[in-house]
């Protein structure tokens, strides 16, 4: 048997260490202090951090490219071989990401229309062009605002949900369990979410278009005394089907980006609950960043092709 070390016995009256230090006013010699971390020069710290972050950014972009490839491949595969399509999972995603988001998307679309209309009226009044507010509202809502606001809300609502759901599954080893059962997490977890959101976001965008125009109608009545039937006429003159389409074609692209980034960060979670929070935050920030950057590129593109 391994002998346990004997417990030291003492005949001294029991006195706590704190009391001893207080009464003798010095630290006993047999007490060792904690090792202090080596101070790093400020300048070097900055350089190290810079290098670290640059490396991380590089690894990150490689990860995104790889994941886009794998996710696109898996999604394409699922669509051409419908046996692998998880219809139940997709419909659950559509319900979660779409139907439940209707109230907030609708409300915000109305708000945005009101904001634009107010600015339009104030800015255009000196030139006597306040009637053009209707054009301003309808064009900006259909082409840009509806899809952008919808994408941002969905990134916040569903992108974060994807990252957190998959992240917790990762922590609880459920992702490993899938793999060990011979099921591809890509096919089981990522593809239904991507397809679900690609179906949902254009529909939500269309809903936001409608709500934005209704908001515009209400504010026109209130500020410019344009009746709803006049408003419809004006909108008819101001916009074209292609304005609606410019907004709607962006939606599936944004949906793919949001779903993909959410799932990617979810699968990157490792170990702790803290990691779930960190990856969720990153997923949302990155998705919104990429959506807005892409929207800028789209604007340039559509301007160049003359749409």
């Amino acid at each position, binding site marked *: 048997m*391994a002998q346990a070390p004997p417990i030291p016995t003492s005949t001294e009256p029991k006195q706590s260490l704190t009391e001893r230090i207080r009464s003798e006013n010095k630290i006993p010699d047999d007490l060792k202090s904690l090792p202090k971390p080596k101070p790093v020069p400020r300048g070097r710290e900055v350089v190290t951090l810079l290098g670290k972050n640059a490396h991380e950014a590089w690894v990150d972009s490689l990860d995104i490219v790889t994941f886009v490839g794998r996710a696109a491949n898996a999604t394409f595969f699922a669509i051409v071989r419908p046996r692998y399509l998880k219809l139940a999972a997709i419909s659950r995603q559509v319900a979660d990401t779409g139907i439940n988001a209707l109230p907030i998307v609708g409300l915000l679309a109305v708000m945005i229309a009101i904001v634009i209309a107010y600015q339009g009226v104030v800015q255009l009044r000196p030139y006597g062009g306040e009637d053009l507010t209707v054009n301003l509202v309808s064009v900006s809502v259909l082409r840009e605002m509806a899809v952008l606001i919808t994408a941002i809300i969905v990134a916040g609502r569903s992108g974060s949900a994807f990252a957190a759901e998959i992240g917790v*599954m990762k922590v609880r*080893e*459920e992702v*490993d*369990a899938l793999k*060990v*059962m011979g099921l591809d997490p890509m096919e089981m977890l990522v593809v239904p979410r991507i397809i679900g959101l690609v179906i949902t976001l254009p529909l939500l965008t269309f809903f936001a278009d409608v709500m934005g125009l209704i908001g515009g109608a209400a504010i026109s009545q209130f500020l410019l005394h344009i009746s709803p039937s006049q408003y419809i006429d004006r909108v008819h003159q101001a916009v074209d089907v292609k304005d609606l389409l410019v907004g709607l074609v962006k939606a599936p692209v944004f949906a793919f980006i949001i779903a993909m980034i959410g799932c990617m960060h979810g699968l990157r979670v490792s170990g702790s609950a803290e990691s779930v929070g960190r990856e969720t935050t990153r997923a949302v920030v990155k998705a919104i960043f990429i959506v807005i950057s892409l929207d800028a590129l789209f604007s340039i593109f559509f301007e160049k092709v003359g749409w």
Partner: protein
Amino acid sequence: MKAKAQASTKGEPILSARGIVNAFGKQKVHDGIDFEVRRGEIIGIAGGSGSGKTVLLKTLTGLHTPNKGKVLVEGKPVESIDDAQKAALIGVLFQQGALFSSLSVAQNVMLPMRLHTDLEDEEQEKLAAMKLALAGLETDTGIKFPGELSGGMVKRAALARALALDPRILFLDEPTSGLDPITAGGIDELILKLNQDLGVTFILITHDLNTLFTVCDRVAILVDHKITVDTLDNLMRSNQPWIHDLLHGPRAPNKKGHSHGS
């Protein structure tokens, strides 16, 4: 017990690890791990906290690709086995069960069947009920969700799922941790029963000395990035300090209480 003693001496290797090296950054976890698991035996993997038991399990099941070395299951490299075959060959009970929380217990058990077999729904349900019974759960548990189960029941349900496709090898990651001694004893009995009745090969990671002493034919101990595999009787005589402390320490069961390998 007699059948088990036979199994520990006979049986060709069903799984072998050759020269496994795993490192995370500069930190080396495994440095050249070689061992074989024979068909029909129960092998326990023990080792201190942070000695890389779970990483070893993930390497053996193909979830983690080692930096060096390879794992052969039934003579084939584990990464080359296709999904459906692998699911039929290997079952894993994860430390926290890893049941899918959005599915009921029965649906969890049926999931591998649904995706890898073409059984009718009714047949799947019957099979699932049978697997649950095999794992020692009431059939009523099938309609419950993982969140409603106690720790011991989660382990049993996860075991039922691991058994779904009648795997030849079952990996158990700390099957008795966090369970009260009576429930843990029940799990031990279950392992022995499945091993004797179905001839399943077990590889179990455990800290639980009782489990090591009562169910394992051989024990693999991870110390200093290497592995030592032997029967308990031989390991009891080992001079390696960690192994000696583990098997002779204050928590080791009374040696007379076991009659293993004799």
